[in-house]
């Protein structure tokens, strides 16, 4: 149900920094359905286990467009929308380094 994960990389900098920790919850999410602005973790076939912010909810919550904060973030601009079936969890707690 809950997972503690370590963030690697700078795609969500400065909101999430390399080395931060996040607590994620699996569906059904205790804080409600995924909406724009939520941060989710998901399995992407090419790029692996990723964390990104949802920029748009598509197909009545069945797919999500995700974005990083950096101009060269690897996100839905590269690999398209993320289906709900690949979403492993939603970030419910962010443990920052500072």
């Amino acid at each position: 149900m809950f997972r503690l994960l370590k963030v690697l990389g700078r795609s969500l900098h400065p909101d999430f920094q390399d080395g931060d920790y996040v607590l994620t919850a699996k569906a059904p999410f205790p804080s409600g359905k995924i909406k724009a602005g939520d941060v989710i973790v998901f399995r992407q076939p090419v790029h692996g286990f990723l964390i990104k912010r949802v920029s748009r909810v598509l197909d009545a919550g069945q797919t999500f467009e995700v974005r990083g904060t950096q101009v060269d973030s690897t996100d839905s601009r590269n690999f398209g929308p993320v289906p709900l079936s690949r979403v492993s969890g939603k970030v419910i707690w962010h443990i920052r380094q500072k």
Partner: protein
Amino acid sequence: MLHKIIKGLDQHAQIESVDAHCDIPCGIYDPHHAQIGALTVIRMVDLIDQHVKEHGKIETAEFFNSMARYIAVKEEHAELVKHEIRVIWGDFIKENHTEQFPQLHGLVHKIMALGSKARQTVDRETAMLLLDAVNEFAEIFWQIKGKGTKRVKSPYSVSEDMVVPEL
């Protein structure tokens, strides 16, 4: 405090990581190499023309040696232009950039075609068109990066325009 505790735990328990992935890693992109390549193509065309005028039809080993070197460098740098632009186009440019600059795909295709033509010919006009297209690409690139640009005369042996960022 909490982060320190979890980090200590992580060192023993190996908490799984999740990747906030950038392109290897938050890549460094710059059209400068392509611009240098385009200027070099112009320089080689100038040197080839000058070499022919100076030597006329004297077919010496020295003539052919120099000519071969100019052609080789022209080939190499025209291909460098194409390579550098392809990398920025493929790895850096995203869909929202092409929405903002709908001319981008056409411009990249134009650079590819002009790069090939610059290899096939010894034509200053083609080489100048290649530089113009690369400069236009550089302007768009720096706009995407949120930087202003200006046109300056290159400080090299070819005194043609270069687009440079206002950093």
